[in-house]
């Protein structure tokens, strides 16, 4: 079976049911859409296998005790930005790290339990990474929108 197939109406209807309740059983979905549970199961598996769908629980920063969220733009000097970002992404406080175009070279998203943790992150961790010229933070004070149900699905997202 080819991994790339066009998604049809039936697939979309199943996804819609999963968006309403990701934990609905195959039988519950089948009853709503007048299909068999075996069909629902096979369709979900086919989309998952082709990296078109993941049904998962996402958890809030607060569930992990993260109360401070900030973005940090980093300017690199005297070293390849790709090396610097590899080192920075080793730190557990860094939950996203991207190489970017523009005035800065690296963009990080950082989650901390509390502001006091910034001390340790800057002075014991980031200060050990060679090649950082400057860091400019933006501290999140309010999250207005955070959409997470459409995303490229790749190897990093696999269970």
């Amino acid at each position, binding site marked *: 079976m080819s991994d790339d197939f066009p998604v049809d109406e039936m697939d979309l209807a199943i996804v819609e049911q999963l968006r*309403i309740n990701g934990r609905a059983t195959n039988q519950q979905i089948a009853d709503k859409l007048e299909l068999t549970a075996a069909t629902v199961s096979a369709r979900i598996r086919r989309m998952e296998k082709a990296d078109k769908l993941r049904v998962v629980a996402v958890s809030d920063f607060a569930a992990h005790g993260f109360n401070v969220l900030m973005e940090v733009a980093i300017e690199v000097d005297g070293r390849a930005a790709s090396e610097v970002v590899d080192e920075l*992404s080793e730190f557990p406080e860094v939950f996203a790290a991207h190489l970017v175009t523009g005035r800065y070279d690296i963009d990080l998203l950082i989650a901390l339990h509390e502001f006091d943790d910034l001390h340790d992150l800057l002075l014991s961790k980031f200060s050990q990474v060679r090649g950082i010229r400057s860091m400019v933070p933006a501290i999140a004070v309010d999250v207005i*929108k955070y959409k997470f149900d459409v995303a490229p699905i790749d190897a990093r997202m696999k269970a």
Partner: protein
Amino acid sequence: MSAPLIDALDHQLIEILSKDARISNRKIAADLGVTEGTVRGRIKRLQQEGMIAFTAITSFGLANSAKLAFIGVQTDVDQVKQIAAEIAELPMVNAVLITMGRFNILTFCLFSELDKLHAVASDQILAIKGVHHVETSIAVKTVKYNSRIVKITKDEKLIASDK
């Protein structure tokens, strides 16, 4: 409001469900050595408190080359909330954060073609009254991204408690 208590069992549940949300309560209960009732009750509480949300993440509609961009926005300070709400209405905008730093608002945008990103940043966002400057930065490589930890906003909480 005090932080809700999340214990070790909750963390184990979150860990299992963040890999696959379609595992049955029975299987989870057997794996963790607790009753099905406990699993059911815990999941319900975590959902109601906005600690977890179940979602179907899809990649269709996105070209294989979908890219992420950060758009920083400088606005009149007294209008920042209203402008952020307006930006949040734009479909290509995936996240909107009000920030303190070099921007008032930071947005994440998923795009497949450069001209579409330009239209969002330079036509739509820049045209909003009170917006003075936008700065776009494109992610050329994602080295790390934990997509399972998110900000569950009020809308998702409502959906979760409706179930």
